[in-house]
């Protein structure tokens, strides 16, 4: 019963959206080739599900996404831990980061294609850039905010700098880093499609470009729905991760 209660507002929301969508087509009298109605999109979706091509595209997209995202997380967290610990270096690096951060990853695409060729790499690199800065910045600010008591304990217990990072700084800043991971996940997922429009021959982004080129807008819309639903699923996934973090860390203070 509780589950139904929780799900029903979600269901109502989606039903309202579908009704609105259909209604807009009725009122506007749009041609279905230009603005595909829900049913046609559903048909297109069923078609790519039943011939299995959708899953192949999802698989390759998720592979690229996680390669880029996880690489960005690992590099950004390690760099963030080191930079956050040394104020002097961060003062030098911070302006550079602030200049690079607002540049859309897509702007780099000409260079990315030149340097990394086509195939999986351009999408992975673009996702990497999209995820890198949010994680780096949240890690640095998390490290700066680590309770000084913990650092006093580390020096009192004569921990080496590496031990201090591993046993004190990383776990103490972990909740805030997890927050950054969440933000980065969203922005990286947004850039998946853009990344796959650059020189890829597979994946959800490619599927959209391909469908556009053959003017099947119902398929474009179906891809948009899939990307949205997958994004929602990823977000829910990281929510579980965050609530695990909160269970251990959140009850601390």
């Amino acid at each position, binding site marked *: 019963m509780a589950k139904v209660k929780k799900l029903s507002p979600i269901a109502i929301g989606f039903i309202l959206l579908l009704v609105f969508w259909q209604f807009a087509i009725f009122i506007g009298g749009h041609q279905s080739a230009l603005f595909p109605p829900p049913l046609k999109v559903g048909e297109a979706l069923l078609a790519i599900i039943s011939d299995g091509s959708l899953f192949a595209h999802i698989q390759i997209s998720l592979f690229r996404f996680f390669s880029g995202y996880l690489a960005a997380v690992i590099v950004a967290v390690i760099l963030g831990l080191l930079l956050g610990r040394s104020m002097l270096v961060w003062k030098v690096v911070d302006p550079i980061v602030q200049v690079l951060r607002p540049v859309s990853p897509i702007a780099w695409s000409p260079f990315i294609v030149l340097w990394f060729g086509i195939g999986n790499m351009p999408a992975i690199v673009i996702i990497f850039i999209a995820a890198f800065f949010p994680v780096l910045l949240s890690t640095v600010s998390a490290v700066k905010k680590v309770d000084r*008591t*913990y650092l*006093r*304990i580390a*020096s*009192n*217990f*004569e*921990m*080496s700098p590496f*031990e201090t990072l591993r*046993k*004190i700084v990383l*776990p*103490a800043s*972990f909740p805030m880093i997890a927050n950054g991971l969440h933000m980065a996940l969203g922005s990286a997922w947004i850039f998946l499609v853009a990344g796959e429009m650059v020189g890829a021959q597979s994946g959800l982004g490619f599927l959209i470009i391909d469908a556009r080129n053959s003017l099947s807008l119902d398929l474009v819309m179906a891809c948009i729905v899939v990307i949205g639903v997958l994004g929602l699923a990823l977000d829910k996934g990281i929510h579980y991760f965050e609530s695990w973090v909160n269970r*251990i*860390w959140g*009850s*601390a*203070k």
Partner: protein
Amino acid sequence: MIDIRNVSKSYSEQGPTVLQDISFDIKKGEVIAILGKSGCGKSTLLNCIGGFEAVNNGQILLDEVSIRKPSKRCIMLMQNYGLLPWRSVRKNVELGIENISLSKQEISERTLHYLRMVGLEDRANALPSELSGGMQQRVAIARALAMQPEVILMDEPFGALDTFTRYYLQDELMQIQRREKMTIVLVTHDIDEAIYLADRILIMKPNPGEIHKEIVLRLPKERNRADADFQHYRELIFNEFQFTHETTIEFNI
């Protein structure tokens, strides 16, 4: 064992003198209480002994060697216990002895030994947030003891606890001190606590922070708060504070 010679400290050149010309020595196995109102520099003095802060003039020697940075020989118990919230009670106690050459078995034996000493062996797997304040302080004491330091520095160790827990922990601390024979330097503003625990009380007065009076307690180790001698010392110390209070009032007029 610890020799404090003509120590002075101020935080900036023009700033107020926090500590002025402080000299005393601490013998091995002694319990010293530094008693004073807030702002008299007693915590700063303790931080200097622990090596957390540098002194401007004078020297603090531990076994004839000047203290320059925190070390495992002097463990500081923090005001807010300083337990790592993401580590279980057992892992918190192990924190200080993980990086010395002990086998896994020796580490867990020693951890259990000291957890048993503070009566928390059945809570070894709990997280600090699941324990009461008094229990957290006992974990912090066990963690300090497990490192087998020569000196334990305590900054208002029982300040945040209710009276009954405080009395109970004071008793427990004294029993452990008699068994382990470690040296304790304790900072407090609680006159009763100082008389109950210490062999010697140093009364500090503020602006500039200096030692106003030293009182050697000629009481048996087993103390009774209702004792006539106890009352005598309480009155003695109380008068010291009355005295300093009056002078400041005169000064204001």
